[in-house]
C-alpha cells in the first residue's frame, strides 16, 4: 500500500514543551495515475496497426517458342480483359471482331459481374479462360486488383498476355471518346 507508518513508535510520550507535529497522510490518490495508464494503453492499441503484409502467389507460364506448344483455348470460353489508364477496364468475349463491335467498356466494380456471367454461361467450366492484357498506361495496382478478382471469382485459368497494337489503339480511342463525351 502506498502508505507509510507514521505513527510514533510505541506511544512514546513527548515532553510537555514539545509540540506535536501535524501528522500528514502519505497516502497518495492513485486514481489519476490509473486513468493515465489506461489512456496510454488505449492510445497504443488504437494506433498500432496489426496488419502484416500478405503475399499473393503468381505462377508464370514458361515461354513457349513453338506455336504448337502454346496453350489453346476454346473461343467460346474466352474473355479478354484489357486494362487502360485511370482505372478503365475493357473487355471482349471470344475473339475481337473486325469492327470491334464486341469491345465493351467496364470498370473494376462491374467487371466482377461480367466475369460471373461469363463463367456461368460457359458450358464447361474447364473451358473458361480469362486473358488479361494490361496496357502500358495502367498501374501496378490495377494488375494486382484484376489478379485478385481472379482469386475472388475462383477463375482457375487465367493468363497475363502482352497487349497487341490493335487492342492498344482501341483502348486509347475508347478512352479518348469517354473523356470527350461528358463535354458534349
Amino acid at each position, binding site marked *: 500500500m502506498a502508505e507509510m507508518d507514521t505513527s510514533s513508535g510505541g506511544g512514546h510520550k513527548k515532553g510537555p514543551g514539545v509540540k506535536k507535529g501535524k501528522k500528514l497522510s502519505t497516502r497518495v490518490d492513485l486514481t489519476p495515475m490509473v486513468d493515465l495508464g489506461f489512456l496510454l494503453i488505449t492510445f497504443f492499441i488504437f494506433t498500432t496497426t496489426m496488419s502484416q503484409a*500478405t*503475399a499473393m*502467389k503468381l505462377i508464370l507460364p514458361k515461354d513457349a517458342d513453338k506455336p504448337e506448344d502454346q496453350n489453346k483455348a476454346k473461343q467460346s470460353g474466352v474473355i479478354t480483359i484489357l486494362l487502360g489508364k485511370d482505372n478503365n477496364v475493357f473487355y471482349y468475349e471470344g475473339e475481337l471482331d473486325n469492327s470491334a463491335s464486341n469491345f465493351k467498356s467496364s470498370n473494376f466494380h462491374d467487371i466482377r459481374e461480367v466475369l460471373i456471367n461469363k463463367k456461368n454461361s460457359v458450358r464447361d467450366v474447364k473451358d473458361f479462360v480469362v486473358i488479361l492484357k494490361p496496357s502500358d498506361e495502367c498501374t*501496378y495496382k490495377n494488375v494486382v*486488383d484484376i489478379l485478385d478478382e481472379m482469386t475472388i471469382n475462383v477463375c482457375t485459368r487465367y493468363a497475363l498476355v502482352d497487349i497487341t497494337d490493335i487492342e492498344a489503339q482501341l483502348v486509347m480511342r475508347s478512352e479518348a471518346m469517354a473523356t470527350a463525351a461528358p463535354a458534349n
Partner: protein
Amino acid sequence: MGRAKLPRKSTSIDMTAMCDVAFLLLSFFILTTKFKPSEAIAVTIPKSVAAKVAPTKDIVQVIIDKDGKVFLEMDDEEVKETMANTLNTTKNLGLDVKAFKKSPFFGASFGGLKSFLALPEDQRKGNLLPGIPVKDSSNNELTEWMTLVRDAYQGKKPSLLLKGDNLAKFPAFKSVITAFKKNDFLKFQMVTNPEAVPVGTELWKKAQSGEKREE
C-alpha cells in the same frame, strides 16, 4: 435506546493495485510491439484477399517504386558476398565486397554500383537513387541480377517477392516479369496488404463452407 452504530467505512479504494495492472499492461504492449523497420524506399502496396503471410526470411525482393524504379533487396549476407565476388571477376567492377554484403538493397546500374556502395547508408534513399535499369528491353539489367542471384543460391530456392507501388506503371512490372522468366524464376509472390473477401462472391462462399483455399 441508541441504535447500534455502524462502523463508518471509507469510500476511497486503494488504487495501487489497479495502477500496477495498468502500467504492467502498458509496458507489455510497448515491449511486444515490433516496429516496422524504416524503409529507405517508400512504397504503398496494394490490397488483395490473399491470406498467406509474406515470408520474411531468406528473401529476394524486387521493389518497384512509384516512378517505376526497380530495386533489389536481399537479406542473406553469404549469398551477397558470393554475388559481389562474381561481379568483381566477371565485370571487373572493383566493388567493396564488405559494403556490398552489408547493403540491404541495390539500386544502381552495374556501372554506378561502386559509387552507390560508397554512399553512406543514410543517404541511400529510394527517391535519390537511379534504380536498376530495366526500361530498355535490350539492356534489362535486372535479368543479369537475377542470374547472379540464381547462381549464388546454387539450386536452393529463395522466396522471391515482388513489392510494387500502387502507382507504378505496368511496363516496369512487365520488365521485372521478363527478367524473372528469363532466369526460370516462374513462381513469385506479390506483397500486398490484407483485405476482406467481398461478401457473396464465390471465394466467400467457399470460405463459409469451410473449404480451404489453395495458396
